[in-house]
């Protein structure tokens, strides 16, 4: 990490948030804006954090500085950014400590989100205590609606369980109404927070939409064989199959469904379904599979983004990470709107502005992204965005899913 000394200019800017306002002319422009994050680099969550989040932090850092930095209009100049990064080892205690280190020792100007729901939740009280606005890019829980008011500085960027599940339930209900399917749904989920909460949210929606859930079971996260479970699912003869799965199981159950010739007309897998590696492994068999947390590859700016990503990392970007990049873009826009590092003002701008980003328009209502991309689908070997259907760029659903070839 770059550890160049931190000169007093930016300390003055930090002070500006709390000290009585002195004439602007008296303040020198900071020579850097410092962003800090503590994120999991070692342990089981390290890989996910790397591909979804850290890569985007690095890419954004490079692109912003290539463009001269972030415009601080109060000083009338662009200021380059600098990143301070720590490894939290996947432990909440480490994250808490390192976040305080970022804020109190390193005196960073802004804090960026850690990885995974529980880590974001662990960090939320601290960033609120110190009033650092953070856009949480990998946190999803049914509690969001209660937690929002508790933590005014925390913003929730991705589709929460309800937003992610309701469109699925509605889509199946519509297909049923059109007489295309009977509406027999089977849903499975791993025994982790994400799986359980999405499943619960889906059951709630399915009940409202009058769907018949013929099978609903959880499996052990980390299981080495899902074939018996898929057999059980097949025995109930569902026409829609949903798995609120995690990456390793997403891969495994897709392969085992093919081996068993399980061909539901409507099939959804959750995390990992958008990975480039998923497509690499299964080729065109991915067509018709619905996936969680996509991004629109046709959105304006995506070509440049994809190229820059390829140039820097020598591999394809992860569509599930585009929301992270979008969060960074809108943070930059908010800072530029305010024109200085005044975190209270930045927070208010984030809370009240509609931003144009790579991930489409983002507008927070009660700190919750009002209309995030929730469900995508592989069509013709490409990832597309499907739901929310009313969002600009959304493609129509491909139905039925083609049988495995």
């Amino acid at each position, binding site marked *: 990490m770059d550890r160049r000394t931190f000169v007093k200019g930016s300390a003055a800017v930090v002070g500006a948030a709390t000290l009585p306002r002195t004439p602007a002319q008296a303040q020198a422009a900071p020579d850097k804006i410092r962003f800090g994050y503590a994120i999991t680099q070692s342990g089981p969550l390290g890989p996910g954090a790397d591909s979804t989040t850290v890569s985007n932090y690095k890419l954004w850092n490079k692109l912003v500085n290539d463009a001269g930095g972030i415009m601080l209009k109060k000083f009338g100049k662009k200021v380059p950014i600098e990143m301070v990064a720590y490894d939290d080892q996947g432990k909440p205690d480490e994250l808490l400590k390192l976040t305080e280190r970022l804020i109190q020792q390193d005196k960073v100007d802004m804090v960026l989100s850690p990885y995974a729901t529980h880590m974001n939740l662990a960090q939320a009280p601290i960033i609120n205590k110190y009033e650092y606005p953070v856009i949480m890019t990998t946190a999803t829980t049914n509690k969001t609606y209660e937690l929002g008011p508790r933590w005014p500085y925390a913003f929730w960027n991705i589709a929460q369980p309800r937003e992610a599940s309701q469109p699925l339930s509605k889509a199946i209900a519509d297909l049923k109404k059109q007489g295309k399917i009977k509406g027999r749904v089977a849903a499975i989920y791993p025994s982790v927070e994400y799986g359980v909460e999405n499943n*619960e949210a889906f059951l709630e929606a399915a009940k409202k939409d009058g769907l018949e859930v013929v099978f609903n079971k959880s499996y052990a996260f980390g299981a080495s064989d899902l074939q018996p479970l898929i057999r059980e699912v097949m025995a109930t003869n569902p026409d829609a199959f949903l798995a609120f799965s995690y990456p390793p199981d997403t891969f495994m159950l897709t392969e085992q469904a093919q081996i068993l010739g399980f061909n539901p007309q409507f099939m959804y897998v959750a995390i990992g379904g958008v990975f480039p590696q998923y497509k690499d492994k299964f080729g065109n068999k991915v067509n018709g599979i619905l996936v969680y947390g996509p991004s629109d590859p046709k959105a304006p700016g995506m070509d440049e983004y994809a190229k820059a990503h390829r140039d820097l990392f020598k591999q394809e970007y992860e569509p599930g990470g585009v929301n992270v990049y979008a969060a960074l873009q809108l943070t930059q826009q908010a800072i530029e709107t305010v024109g200085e590092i005044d975190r209270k003002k930045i927070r208010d701008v984030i809370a009240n502005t509609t931003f144009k980003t790579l991930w489409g328009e983002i507008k927070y209502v009660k700190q919750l992204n009002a209309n995030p991309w929730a469900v995508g689908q592989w069509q013709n070997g490409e990832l597309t965005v499907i739901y929310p259907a009313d969002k600009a760029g959304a493609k129509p659903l491909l139905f039925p899913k083609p049988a495995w070839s």
Partner: protein
Amino acid sequence: MLELLRRNWGISALTALGAGLLALVPLFGSNYVLSLFIVLYANVALATAWAFFSGATRYISLATAAFFGVGIYTLAILHVYVSIPLAVVGAAIVGFLVALVVGLSTLRLRGVYFVVFTFGLTELVHQVLNWWEIKINKTVSRYIFTDVSNVNIYETLLAVTLITIVGSWYVSQIRLGFALRAIGEDETVARHTGVNTTRVKILCFALSASVMALVGAVLALRYPYIDASIAFNNTWSFQVLIAALLGGAGRAWGPAMGAVPLVLLSEYLAGSFPHHFSIALGLCFVVIVYFLPGGITRLIERFLHSLKAARAGMGGHG
């Protein structure tokens, strides 16, 4: 106890002075410093508690995470119904009781069988608890919202850590401690010398577990959210074992000698080389084994010994 204090007044006074100074840290330390100390204390207390049983008896346990997690869960469940201090104490009691049951069934296993069993235990508790939460509560998440300040957590953990170290030292001076060491040296001899080995092992295993649960419960006051994978994160088990072995598990203050540098090293590496943390940590272990056998404790003792010898030598000539 008083007799022991009188005989070791120098070190007792030093400990009391050190504890007093540490207790004052919140007056001038930033929140970051408090957090760093909290992590330090947690590691020291866990490593000391681990070594109290496993170091002395050489029953290498990987169940630290299990009892730590039991503490977290007990707090998460109890804090809704009773006051926080009561919930924390409750966690220690539950940890003690769980360890009693576990100890009854497992402490006849030895060597690597015991190691792997305790590892399996952590996983089993994790899986079964997860299953229970999903089946009964329809969620795996629990939220802990308290208004306990960092300073309170700091002082509590400081007290827990001191009590653990002093307690561990005290036990090493009484019959129970001798019995524990004898079990580690040769369990058959201990048994035939009149030591009720089963009772000693289970009691000490449970005491050690209750400290682990206690630490888990206190740390959990800082987590707004927990689930089984956080509570039963088995990296705790490994980290604690490494710290104790690095420091030297044969002395009450040994594990602290290992835990403190490890935490500080990881704090340094976390910032300087986040990507190379694991490589550096790994090389550290290798270096320790080849160049620091017996841990830091032995290094210090050898140094003190040679110092004493030098002084005695001078005295002899003078």
